[in-house]
C-alpha cells in the first residue's frame, strides 16, 4: 500500500504578535513501509518555498507568536528502501497588521477657567481588524491617566480648566481586544492664570513741545486686555494709524505732524481681537514755516553774496541749495535759522549758478525762487613766479595730511601747475580750493606754466619753486648741529668732503633711513636700518649742496635737513710769500698744537688718524700766555724772499731743514743796527710766513732758527742795493707746520 501522508488542522486568524493555537493531526501517516519520520515546515510566500522547522518532528506542532501571515505543512518519510516522502495539507495562519492609535492635536495655553479649543484627531487609528474602540484619557501630572466617561469618539472637547491637564486617546481593536490597545501622542493644555480684565479707551491725551512738524504725546491707559496702543492722526478724511507702541506705553516723543496745520490726534488701545478702544481726539497746531522772503544777491568778484528775510516761526535751520547750469544741484551750506546772509566762495569763474534758500524743519522744506549768477572772468593777477604765492602746511608722523595751497585760485585761470615730490610722485591741485592734499613729509617741487592764451601778458617762462618742505609737526627727532668737512681735489688725489648731521630725539628701538639728494634731484647716498646717530653721515661727499631726509622706519616720521653744502678748497696756487714775521726764540717758548677739539669737523668716531702736529694753534711766552712775544715784520722783497724745506737723509735719520731767504733793500745805518740784532749769534728766531695763497706757516719753534748766511752789496749800476740773509731751522721730522690764522691776526699782525 502506498504511503498516506495524513492531514493537519486548522486555519487560523490572529492579531499582530499573537500566538495561534497548536496545529493538530487529524490523521497520522499510514501505508508504505511503517516506521515514519515527521518534519513540520513553514512558508512566508504562500507555499512557494518551504523551510524546515528545527525540532518539529512530532505529529502536532505549536508555532509560538507571529507578526506576519505564514503557511504550515507536515512532511512524512517512510522506512522503505528507497524511502517514500509525502506531505499533508497546508494550513494558513493569517496575522492582522499592528494597531496604530493615530495622533491628536494640539497643545494650548488658556486663561484659568476658560474652555480650551477642541482636541482634534490629526490621524485616526489604523491596523488590526479595523473595528476600533476609542477612549480619551486625562492626567494632571502626565504620569497616571484616567478614562473620561463618554469620551469615545475620535475628537474631544475638554471642559473649562483651572490647572494644567494632559490628554491622550486610547484605541483598541474589537477582534484583538483591549490587551492589544495603543495610545496616541499626549497634548498639554497649559493654564496661565486669570484672564485679563476688559480693555477700555486711554484717557488724558495731551500734546506738548509742538513745533513745525512734531510734538510729544502723553496719555493714561485704562483697563487690561490690550496688546498694543496705536496713535492715529486725522488726514482730512479719516483717522489713520501712524505709530504703534507697546500696551504699557503712556508717552510718545517726536510724533510727526502736518506742518502749518491744526492736527487731530487720538490714542487707541487695541486688544487681542484687534478691537480699537480710542481716546477723545485732541488738536495740535504746528508752528509756522515758510520760505524766506526778500531773497536777493550780488557778485563780489567771484563770490556770490546772498541775503534774505526769515518769516517762519517754526523752521529749525536754513539750507543753501545751488544748481550748476548743467543741472547738477547740491546743498552747499546749512545755516542756523537766524542767518540772513551767506557768501559762496567756492564758485568757478565763467560758470552760472542758481541759488535758493530753504527753510527746513524735520525734513520739510520751503524754498525761495531761484536766482542766477554768472561768475565773471578772472581779473589779471600779479605773475605767480614773482612772489611766494603758495603756502605749505605740515603733516603728522606717518600720515599723508600735509597741504600745499595756491593762495589765490585765480592763478588756475592763467597757469597750469604741476607738483612732484623728490621721488617723482605727482600730485594734483583742487582748482576750487587751490589745495593739493594727501602730502606726506617730503621735499616737493611746484612748477607754474603760463597757459598759451596768456603768454601775451605773462610771457612763456615757467618757474619752479623747488625743495618745498612738508615737515611732520609732531616729529620728536630734531637737528642739534651739522659738521661739514670741505673737499679738496688735488694735487695729491682727491679728499672727499663730509657732512655729519647730529640728530637728537630718536626713538629707542626704532630703525631709520637716511637719504641724501643733490640739487639735480638725484639720490646721492642712502642707508637703511640705521640705529645709531653716527650713521647720519654723508661721507665721501663731493663739493656741492645736499638735501637730506631721515625717516623713522617704524613711525614714518620724516626729518628734512635741507641745503647743507660741502665747500671745496680751491685748487689754484699763486707762487710766493705775502708776509713774514720773526720773533726771538727762547727755551721758554711753548706752543699748543692744533687739537681735535679745535677742528670744526672733527668726529671722534671717524677721524681716528687726526694729525695734531701739522698745525700749531698758538705760541705761548715764558709767562704762559699768548701775549708777551714781540713779533717783527720783515719786508717781503719781490723775487728774493722765499721759504724752502728739504729732506735730508743723515746717519741720525731723516730730518727736515727749513731755509728762509730774506732781502733788505736800500741798506743804511738804521737798518745796520737792526741787522746787528739779527746777526747776533746768541739770538735765535721763530718765523711765521703767509704764502701767496693766504696760508700761514711757521718754523724754528723746536730749536730756533739761526742766520746761516749774510751778504751785503751795493750792486753794480742798475743792480740791487741791499743785503740778503738766510735763516735756517731744523724741523726734525715735521713737514712744514701750519699755524692758525686767528693767532696771527690777533697776536702777530
Amino acid at each position, binding site marked *: 500500500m502506498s504511503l498516506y501522508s495524513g492531514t493537519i488542522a486548522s486555519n487560523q486568524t490572529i492579531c499582530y504578535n499573537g500566538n495561534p493555537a497548536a496545529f493538530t493531526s487529524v490523521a497520522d501517516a499510514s501505508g508504505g513501509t511503517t516506521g515514519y519520520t515527521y518534519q513540520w515546515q513553514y512558508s512566508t510566500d504562500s507555499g512557494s518555498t518551504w523551510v524546515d522547522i528545527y525540532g518539529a518532528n512530532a505529529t502536532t506542532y505549536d508555532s509560538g507568536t507571529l507578526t506576519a501571515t505564514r503557511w504550515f505543512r507536515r512532511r512524512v518519510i517512510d522506512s522503505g528502501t528507497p524511502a517514500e516522502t509525502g506531505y499533508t495539507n497546508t494550513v494558513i495562519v493569517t496575522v492582522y497588521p499592528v494597531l496604530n492609535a493615530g495622533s491628536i492635536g494640539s497643545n494650548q495655553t488658556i486663561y484659568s477657567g476658560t474652555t480650551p479649543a477642541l482636541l482634534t484627531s490629526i490621524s485616526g487609528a489604523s491596523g488590526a481588524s479595523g473595528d476600533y474602540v476609542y477612549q480619551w484619557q486625562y492626567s494632571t501630572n502626565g504620569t497616571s491617566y484616567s478614562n473620561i466617561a463618554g469620551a469615545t469618539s475620535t475628537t474631544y472637547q475638554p471642559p473649562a480648566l483651572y490647572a494644567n491637564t494632559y490628554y491622550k486617546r486610547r484605541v483598541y481593536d474589537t477582534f484583538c481586544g483591549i490587551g492589544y490597545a495603543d495610545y496616541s501622542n499626549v497634548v498639554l493644555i497649559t493654564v496661565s492664570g486669570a484672564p485679563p480684565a476688559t480693555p477700555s479707551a486711554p484717557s488724558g491725551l495731551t500734546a506738548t513741545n509742538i513745533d513745525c512738524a512734531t510734538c510729544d504725546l502723553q496719555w493714561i491707559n485704562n483697563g487690561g486686555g490690550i496688546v498694543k496702543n496705536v496713535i492715529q492722526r486725522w488726514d482730512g478724511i479719516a483717522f489713520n494709524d501712524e505709530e504703534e507702541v507697546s500696551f504699557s506705553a503712556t508717552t510718545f516723543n517726536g510724533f510727526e505732524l502736518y506742518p502749518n496745520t491744526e492736527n487731530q490726534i487720538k490714542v487707541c488701545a487695541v486688544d487681542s481681537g484687534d478691537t480699537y478702544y480710542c481716546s477723545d481726539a485732541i488738536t495740535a497746531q504746528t508752528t509756522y514755516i515758510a520760505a524766506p522772503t526778500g531773497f536777493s544777491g550780488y557778485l563780489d568778484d567771484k563770490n556770490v553774496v546772498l541775503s534774505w528775510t526769515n518769516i517762519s516761526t517754526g523752521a529749525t535751520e536754513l539750507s543753501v541749495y545751488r544748481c550748476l547750469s548743467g543741472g547738477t544741484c547740491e546743498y552747499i551750506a546749512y545755516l542756523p535759522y537766524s542767518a540772513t546772509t551767506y557768501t559762496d566762495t567756492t564758485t568757478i569763474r565763467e560758470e552760472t549758478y542758481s541759488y535758493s534758500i530753504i527753510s527746513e524743519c524735520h525734513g520739510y522744506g520751503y524754498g525761495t525762487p531761484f536766482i542766477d549768477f554768472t561768475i565773471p572772468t578772472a581779473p589779471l593777477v600779479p605773475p605767480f613766479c614773482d612772489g611766494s604765492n603758495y603756502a605749505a602746511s605740515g603733516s603728522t608722523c606717518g600720515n599723508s595730511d600735509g597741504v600745499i595751497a595756491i593762495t589765490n585760485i585765480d592763478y588756475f585761470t592763467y597757469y597750469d601747475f604741476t607738483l612732484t615730490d623728490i621721488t617723482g610722485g605727482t600730485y594734483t591741485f583742487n582748482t576750487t580750493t587751490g589745495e593739493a592734499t594727501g602730502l606726506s613729509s617730503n621735499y616737493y617741487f611746484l612748477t607754474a606754466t603760463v597757459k598759451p592764451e596768456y603768454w601775451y601778458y605773462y610771457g612763456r617762462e615757467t618757474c619752479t619753486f623747488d625743495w618745498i618742505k612738508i615737515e611732520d609737526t609732531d616729529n620728536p627727532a630734531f637737528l642739534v648741529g651739522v659738521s661739514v668737512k670741505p673737499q679738496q681735489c688735488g694735487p695729491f688725489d682727491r679728499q672727499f668732503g663730509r657732512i655729519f648731521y647730529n640728530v637728537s630725539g630718536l626713538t629707542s628701538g626704532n630703525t631709520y633711513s637716511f637719504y641724501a639728494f643733490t640739487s639735480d634731484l638725484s639720490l646721492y647716498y642712502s642707508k637703511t636700518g640705521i640705529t645709531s646717530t653716527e650713521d647720519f653721515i654723508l661721507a665721501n661727499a663731493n663739493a656741492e649742496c645736499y638735501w637730506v631726509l631721515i625717516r623713522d622706519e617704524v613711525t614714518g616720521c620724516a626729518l628734512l635737513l635741507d641745503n647743507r653744502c660741502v665747500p671745496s678748497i680751491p685748487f689754484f696756487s699763486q707762487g710766493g710769500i705775502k708776509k713774514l714775521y720773526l720773533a726771538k726764540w727762547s727755551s721758554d717758548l711753548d706752543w699748543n698744537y692744533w687739537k681735535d677739539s679745535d677742528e670744526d669737523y672733527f668726529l671722534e668716531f671717524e677721524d681716528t688718524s687726526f694729525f695734531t702736529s701739522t698745525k700749531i694753534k698758538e705760541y705761548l711766552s715764558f709767562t704762559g700766555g699768548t701775549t708777551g712775544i714781540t713779533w717783527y715784520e720783515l719786508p717781503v722783497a719781490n723775487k728774493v724772499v*722765499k721759504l724752502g724745506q728739504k729732506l735730508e737723509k743723515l746717519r741720525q735719520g731723516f730730518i727736515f731743514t727749513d731755509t728762509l731767504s730774506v732781502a733788505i733793500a736800500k741798506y743804511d745805518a738804521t737798518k745796520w743796527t737792526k741787522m746787528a740784532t739779527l746777526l747776533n749769534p746768541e739770538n735765535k728766531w721763530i718765523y711765521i710766513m703767509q704764502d701767496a695763497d693766504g696760508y700761514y706757516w711757521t718754523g724754528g719753534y723746536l730749536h730756533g732758527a739761526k742766520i746761516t748766511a749774510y751778504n751785503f752789496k751795493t750792486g753794480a749800476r742798475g743792480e740791487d742795493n741791499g743785503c740778503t740773509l738766510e735763516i735756517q731751522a731744523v724741523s726734525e721730522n715735521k713737514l712744514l707746520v*701750519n699755524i692758525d690764522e686767528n693767532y696771527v691776526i690777533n697776536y702777530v699782525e
Partner: protein
Amino acid sequence: MAAIPMFDLCQAPSMGGVKRLKLATRDTSDNPLDFPLDITLKVGDESIIVLQDSEINRTITLGSQLIQYRIVYPLHATVTEDETTDRQGRFYTQTLTFELPQISLTTTNQLKSFLFTSSGEFAISNMVAIIEDMNDNLWICGYSQPLVLESFELQTGVDGEDNKYLLSYTAKSYSKIRQIELL
C-alpha cells in the same frame, strides 16, 4: 740679405711726459706693501704685467695683493731708467720725479699719511708706481724693488714760480720697468 728692422723705423708720432701717476704705499688694510710684489705676467708676453684696476675705489689687484693708491696729475714729472754695470754686475736705476703745486695743510696731511709708516714714525714707506705716459702707455715701476723717497722738498716760488712740493723716488732693481695691461 737685407737688414731686419729691429724697432719701428717709421718714426711714429710720440709725445714726452707723464700724464698721470698712481702711487701706492699701502694695501687696502693699510699695511705697508711687502716687496717684491706678487705679479702675474701676461701669457706669451713677459714684458707685460696684468692687473685689475678700480679707479673709482682707487684699488688695484696685482697678483694676490689688493693695493690702494692715489691718483696724481703731476707737474714736471719724469721717469727714467738707467742701466748700470759695475763690478758686482748689472742693475737698473729707476727714478721718478714729480711736483705738486700749492702748499696746503690738507696736502701736507695727505703726504704725511702717505709717506709715513702706519706706526706714525718717520720711516719712509716704500712705493710702487703706475705711470701713464703721454702716449697712453701704462708702466709699472718699483714692483720688484720698491721706489724709495730720495728727496723731498717744498718751496715757495719767487718771480712767478709756484709754491710746490718736489718729490723724487729712486729704485735700484734687477728688473726693468714693465708695461701693464688691465684685465
